[in-house]
Each structure stands twice: as C-alpha cells, then as structure tokens.
C-alpha cells in the first residue's frame, strides 16, 4: 500500500501540467456541485420563508365532531354521512392545553385566536372581512403585522381594529376614523382604525382585519374558548412531527403547514430534483474526466507497467497504483473545489434575511462534505477502468519494444 502510494504520487508528479489541469477540472466540477447545492437550498429557504414565513406552522383546532349517519333513500346507497352543523367548532377548554402547547420544545410563538367573518361598514360602503381576534401583544406572533404597518400602532385595544391598506382604501377610511364591524353572528360594534398594514398579499391586504381577543369574543358570541391556536416553530421543517405530537398529547386536531401547501412542497421537490440532476451531471463530468486522464496515462505508461509486472508486481498492485491516483485526484480536487466554493459563497447573506431581488444563496447548504465524499468515490470508481486496463498489460508485448 505504502509503496503503491509512492508510485501513484510519482506518476502524478511526473506530469505536473496534466495533473494540475485534472485537479482544476475536478475542483471546478465540485464548485458547480457546491454552488448548485447552495443555490437550490437557498432558493428553498427563500421560497419557504417568503411563502410560509407569515403563516402558522401548526394550527390547532377542535376535532371534527362525529358526523351523523343518515339512512339514504337513494337506491344502492345504504347510508349518508353528514357533517354536524348544530354547533360551532370551538376549542372549549383551550386554556387547559395552552401551557402544554407553549412548553413543547421547538415552539417559538403561540397565538390563541377567535376567527370569523363579517362586514366592515363605513356609511353606505361595506366590505366582507375575515376577522381575527388576537391577544394584545401577540398581533405579530405569526405574521409580521407590526413590521408591515404603514400607519398607526400595533397596540390593539377593545375599541380599535387594524385593517389592510387595500381594505381601507376600498372603504375610503383612514387612520383614526370609526367603522362599524358586523360579525356573521349579527353583532355590531363601532371600532376605531388603529392601524393599516400592507403585507403585499392582496387577499390579506383587502380582506383581513385584526381586533383584540375580547372584542372578538363579543362579536362572535364566544364568551369562552377559542377558534384555534396558531403556533410558530423555530424550525418549520419539524412542523409535521410537532403537529403529530400535539395531536397525540391533546387529542385536538393539529395541522402542519405542509398539509395546506402541497403545491409548494411539490415545487420545492421538483426544484431539488432539477438541482440533483445538475449535480449529477457535474459528478459525471468529473468521473469521465478522471477516467479519460488515467486511461491516457495507462496507454502512455504501458511499457513501464509491463516491466513492473515482469519484475513481480501483481495485477492487484497495478490496480492499487491507479486507484490511489484516482482517489488522490478526487480528494484533493474535491477539497479544493469545496474550499473555493466556500470562499466564493460565504459573502452572500443568508436567504432568509435578503430582500426581494437578491440572489438567494445559502452557503450552509453547500453540502461540502458530501461533495468531497462523492467526488472521491466518483474518482475512485472512474479509476477502476484504467486500473483494470493497466493490470492487463502483457509484459511480453512491451519487453521487445
């Protein structure tokens, strides 16, 4: 092994230009691999942050009541399941679960909410709104409403309402003006516009409004309990497991954000597959490059290899010499390419902190170790063909040359 290593290094050192070019080619291939990993990973982080950053990662609701089973009068149908409509789905004893939910590891924020629909009325103008009642101080627990306020303050009182900017423009109201909120339960209340937000999502800016939890209790006639509990996690990738744990420990219905964003997940998976394809091509280029260079070396060194075989070098020894060359090229080229990638990608800010229009590259997802490992393995695999070819050199055919 040690002597084979010496010969492998001697061969690589004998033609420094060729070895240098080969290492450069491998390093560039690894750089592409690292760059694609960081770009695809960064894009995923960016897209998820932009799409999921302002929605709850887990939503806890009351479990659906057992549906009624009715006898069907339709020929061939034995029974019909009908969803219960006799009472609203609400978390009646939510207070008992809140401490448990808030204490689960990985929980960043918990927002108890009462939600419902209604109309916002200003004179003769009315607009349908989705109203969310939140605890004072928790307005931005899930979506960053406070950070997207264009007017007013995020402090909710029992007499204020915060609405989307588009909604305010539709109604022709501005900060400080009084509007009437009529809930779908028929309860009306006059509220002062305490703030205007603009999230950049039309459906929210034109239809969403926030009031305090106590105001929502009055409007939706829910003196106790909650409509739902929204949870934000430190790691949104843990949402499925987190939801399952909450469901298991509380018996409530806990839904992960992934269940409502199948298209996004599909898109991200497709993007990852495309990235893997490009990375695969980069690796293939490395393998072909190493194989062709070593194969060339095999032909050039055929007479030497024949003499080595005549002097008692086994076929295994010759194979080892060439595989060690491949391993060295893969390892050094891999480390160089990964290092180059790290240096080139490090200056890019994290994608979850960049503004729209920036380049979403996440150096943390460069898969440096994987790139080096795959390159080394690929180069070793690439050297097998030349190594086998070298080991089959017939000493007799070269001795007479």
């Amino acid at each position, binding site marked *: 092994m040690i002597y*084979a290593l010496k010969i492998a290094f001697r061969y690589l050192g*004998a033609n420094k230009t060729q070895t240098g070019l080969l290492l450069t080619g491998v390093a560039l291939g690894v750089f592409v691999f690292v760059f694609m990993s960081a770009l695809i990973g960064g894009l995923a982080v960016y897209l998820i942050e932009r799409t999921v950053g302002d929605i709850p990662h887990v939503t806890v609701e009351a479990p659906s009541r057992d549906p009624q089973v009715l006898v069907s009068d339709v020929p061939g149908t034995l029974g019909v399941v009908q969803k219960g409509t006799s009472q609203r789905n609400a978390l009646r004893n939510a207070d008992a679960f809140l401490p448990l939910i808030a204490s689960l590891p990985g929980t960043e924020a918990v927002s108890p909410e009462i939600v419902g629909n209604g109309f916002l009325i200003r004179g003769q103008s009315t607009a349908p709104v989705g109203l969310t009642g939140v605890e004072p101080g928790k307005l931005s627990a899930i979506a960053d409403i406070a950070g997207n306020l264009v007017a007013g303050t995020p402090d909710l009182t029992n007499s204020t309402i915060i609405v989307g900017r588009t909604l305010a423009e539709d109604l022709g109201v501005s900060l400080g003006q009084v509007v009437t909120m009529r809930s779908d339960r028929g309860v009306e209340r006059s509220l002062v516009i305490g703030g205007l937000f603009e999230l950049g999502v039309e459906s929210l800016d034109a239809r969403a409004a926030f009031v305090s939890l106590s105001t929502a209790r009055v409007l939706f006639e829910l003196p106790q309990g909650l409509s739902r509990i929204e949870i934000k996690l430190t790691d949104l990738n843990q949402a499925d497991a987190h939801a399952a744990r909450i469901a298991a420990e509380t018996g409530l219905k806990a839904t992960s954000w992934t269940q409502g964003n199948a298209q996004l997940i599909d898109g991200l998976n497709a993007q990852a597959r495309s990235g893997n394809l490009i990375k695969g091509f980069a690796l293939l280029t490395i393998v072909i490059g190493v194989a062709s260079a070593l194969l060339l070396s095999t032909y050039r060194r055929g*007479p030497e290899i024949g003499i*080595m075989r005549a*002097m*008692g070098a*086994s*076929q295994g020894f010759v194979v080892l010499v060439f595989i060690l060359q491949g391993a060295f090229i893969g390892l050094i080229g891999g480390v160089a390419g990964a290092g180059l990638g790290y240096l080139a990608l490090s200056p890019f800010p994290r994608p979850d902190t960049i503004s729209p229009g920036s380049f979403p590259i996440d150096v943390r997802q460069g898969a440096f170790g994987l790139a080096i490992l795959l390159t080394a393995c690929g180069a070793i695999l690439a050297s097998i063909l030349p190594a086998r070819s070298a080991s089959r050199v017939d000493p007799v055919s070269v*001795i*007479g040359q």
Partner: protein
Amino acid sequence: MSGDALITVDGLVKTFGEGDAATHVLKGLDLEIPPGDMAALLGPSGSGKSTLLSILGTLMQPSGGHYTMLGRDLISASAGELTDFRNHHIGFVFQFHHLLPDFNALENVIFPAAVASGRETRTARDRGRELLRRVGLEDRIEYRASELSGGQKQRVAIARALMNQPELVLADEPTGNLDRESADRVMELLVEINKEEGTAFLISTHDERIADNCRRQIRMVDGQVV
C-alpha cells in the same frame, strides 16, 4: 533429467494462432539448466529464443510440455503464484534497459524488493546501494534513467535483476544495444556475478563473442535445441 537441476523443461511446445494460421514456435523442446550455470542461448532470428525466455521467465504459458524450476511445476501454477515466484526467483535483463523513467537508479534497483514487501525497507536500500557499488555506479545512485549512459542504464538493470537474489537471471540480448566497450563491461560483470554469487544466467544473444564468455552454449534451430 537430473533431479537437482535448477530448470527442467520437457517437450515444451508453443503455438501461436490456430488452424491454418497456426505458427509452431517451440516444437517439443527439452532443456536442463543446473544451478549456477552460465549459458548462452544462440540461434537465428525466429528460432524461438525470446519465446523460450518468456516461458522460462513465467511471462508466457506454453501450449504443451512440462516446466519445473526449483522442483516446482510452473505449468499448473496460478497467475498470482507465478508473479510471486518470478519476483523471488527470476531476474530479467532486457536488450533495452526498461528502467522506470520517473525513478532514480537506486529506486529502480530496489523495485523488485519493494513491490514484494509493499514498502522500501532500509535493508532493501542498503542492498540496492551495495548492488550499485558492485556494478560501479555508486556515484550515480540519485541519477534518473535519462541522466545515465546506455551502458550505465544496463548496469542498473543488472543490479535490479539481482535485487531479490534470484537463482536465475534471464538476459535477452543484454549487450545488443551497447557499444563494444560497454558490452564487454556488462558481460564481464555478468560473468563475475555468476562466479561470485552462483547465480545462473541464461543469455540470449546473436553475438558469438558474447557467447564465448559463457561456460556452455545452447543452440536453437526451428524451435528445438540442437
């Protein structure tokens, strides 16, 4: 056939190709080489000298016949066993030196030992230096093949052939590529080593003058010893 012969060859046949295209190079050749022999292998081109050396050197398998060396049947041995046997018991000197160009003289000499043990031991390096001194190249230890003259290269090749203290050295036209002075020097060296170390030499040559340095001459004609 003598029981204490170094090499015993009986009815050796080698045929290249098949059917009408078959070329019979060795046609039932018998040969015996005792330990410490110094024999010249003479014969015209195409008489089968090189083929015989290749078979004796375990680089080529015969088509038929028997071949034993040091009492071991080398016809039935596996490729791995032949490689190992060759490394320990047979040395080669070729017409062209065939030194490894990226290695210096000492590294070339110790190659057979290093490849056998998997490392360059101090013992091997010491023996390599001693062999290079023996062939008069103690001041060329660090020189690469390209920095040596033709005669010097061949002397390095001789030192390499002797590295593992083989019982037999097969030399195929060892002086064929050298000027007269260098050829004489190389031949003197082979005779000297044969006398002092008892290593058997089988030297293939066209040169009667070289053959005269050997104790006996083996003549080949049309694939047989005559």
